[in-house]
């Protein structure tokens, strides 16, 4: 793996070099939020020290610089996901807002009573609740692609669920609770064959492997800055230009209009039509810095590291007595969700925390998939580009300690 040395990478993340509870910090919760490299932290500071001003309106030098930084970030995102046009990149607060935006604009315009919205059993609440709300508002019906006991989608069920009433397919690229990588390119092909547009929740994908929206062919792709080593409060909705142009505005306010009289408002062109108010400038600048950081490492190298570490961790956890993995898809990303004997995940999390190990415990905002596996909660360790085999070894040692406490 040329250009990727995890020990060098770790040096880029200042937060990792501390002791907690008297032990070296082991951070295994990057699927919740990822840590930030110094390059991102520096970009935020530099923006406020040198370039801060409002965008798209000032005639002064700082406004020009801030506009350049903000629109430059849009171009950086375009390159990262290989969109055709930077106008297809809408800045939002995060994945959740991106999906709500599509549900409330595209959805309110094109989806009516008796129409169907197709999602999957393994969605995060962010890709369930906005559609549930739309269904309540319009009388549309929510349909669900089931998962099997490995945590893979039942692909045989898809064609029958894509009916003449289906108006959108909204599907995750990687399950945050199980780690399953969903074949979204294949699903998009099948949906498009029936004229159904596709939204992909890419929050857990863009951080682990290269994503090319033109190759996937999807109509919308949503992701968050903070899970890919950028700041919180910034995210992206990619939308094919012809889709975005046919959509009504989302929120009203400044920046999203061309002209306003008390009688009539003319809306701005895309993507500005969807960015009412002063945008999250520092967020966009920080996100662009995170993308440049990932590009310098190489997403293929990141993917190879994550794959290798997942294989190591999967094997290591299998050696822990009484540990049952929840989610054993053949194509998995770096998420390890598990039950440990009859110990409740909350108790596992507390004991690990005292060993300096941060994991997530709970339902991971994905209660329907927890219900499928008949568990109220799991323990979830998630890996990122700065994690090492030593981190995994520390986790395994701590899980043995949990078993000692509860034996």
């Amino acid at each position: 793996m040329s250009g990727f040395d995890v020990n060098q990478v770790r040096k880029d993340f200042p937060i990792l070099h501390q002791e907690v509870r008297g032990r070296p910090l082991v951070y295994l919760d990057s699927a919740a939020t990822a840590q930030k490299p110094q390059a991102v932290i520096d970009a935020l500071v530099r923006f406020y020290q040198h370039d801060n001003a409002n965008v798209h309106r000032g005639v002064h030098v700082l406004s020009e610089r801030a506009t350049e930084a903000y629109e430059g970030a849009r171009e950086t995102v375009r390159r990262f996901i290989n969109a055709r046009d930077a106008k297809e990149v809408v800045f939002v607060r995060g994945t959740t807002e991106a999906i709500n935006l599509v549900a409330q604009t595209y959805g309110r315009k094109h989806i009516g009573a008796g129409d169907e919205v197709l999602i999957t059993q393994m969605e995060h609440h962010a890709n369930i609740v906005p559609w549930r709300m739309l269904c309540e508002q319009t009388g549309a019906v929510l349909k669900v692609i089931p998962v099997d006991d490995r945590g893979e989608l039942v692909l045989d069920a898809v064609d029958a669920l894509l009916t003449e009433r289906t108006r959108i397919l909204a599907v995750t690229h990687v399950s945050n609770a199980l780690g399953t990588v969903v074949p979204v390119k294949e699903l998009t092909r099948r949906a498009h064959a029936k004229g159904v547009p596709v939204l992909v929740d890419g929050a857990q994908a863009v951080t682990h492997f290269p994503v090319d929206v033109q190759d996937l062919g999807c109509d919308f792709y949503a992701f968050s800055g903070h899970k890919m080593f950028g700041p919180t409060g910034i995210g992206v909705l990619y939308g094919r230009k012809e889709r975005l142009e046919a959509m009504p505005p989302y929120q009203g306010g400044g920046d999203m209009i061309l002209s306003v009289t008390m009688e009539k408002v003319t809306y701005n062109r895309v993507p500005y039509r969807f960015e009412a108010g002063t945008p999250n400038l520092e967020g966009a600048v920080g996100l662009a810095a995170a993308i440049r950081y990932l590009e310098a490492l190489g997403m293929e190298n990141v993917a190879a590291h994550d794959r290798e570490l997942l294989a190591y961790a999967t094997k290591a956890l299998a050696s822990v007595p009484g540990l049952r993995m929840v989610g054993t898809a053949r194509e998995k990303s770096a998420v390890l969700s598990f039950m440990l004997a009859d110990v409740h995940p909350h108790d596992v999390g507390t004991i690990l925390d005292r060993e300096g190990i941060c994991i997530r415990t709970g339902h991971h905002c994905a209660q329907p998939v927890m219900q499928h596996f008949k568990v109220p909660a799991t323990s979830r360790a998630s890996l990122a580009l700065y994690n090492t085999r030593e981190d995994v070894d520390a986790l395994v040692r701590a899980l043995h300690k949990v078993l000692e406490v509860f034996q």
Partner: protein
Amino acid sequence: MSASDDLKDLYQEVVLEHSKRPRNYRVVEGATAEAAGHNPLCGDQLVVTLKVEGGVIKDVAFQGQGCAISKASASLMTGAVKDRTRAEAEDLFERVHKLVTEGPESVDVDALGKLAVLSGVSEFPARVKCASLAWHTLRAALEGHGEAVSTE
């Protein structure tokens, strides 16, 4: 105090024993009141059923799923409030709540009997909700509003 001592205080023998073999894990026959409790953070859910006669809790039981701390607290609670008046149960909740939030120095621990084993929770702020869930649910049942209570 070391990390490991904190853990021993939290997961005391009695706590582990009650979580594995909870007392009064059933539904009270001929219950006069019941309430459901829910901790959305971790998905813990339990139902408390009661029989109150002449202002006294004659029988109390719980059922549900949760972590060791929430189960042990529920189990210990059922033992502690039986044959108590509503006011006494309410007073006990006040003192248990103080114990798990402010620590053993804040209350007369000896007067709490077995419930004193919950004192370790005070070193773990994230677990106070677990220890309190059954008690909030008991209070809802005593107050007789049928809505599910939540720790959020």
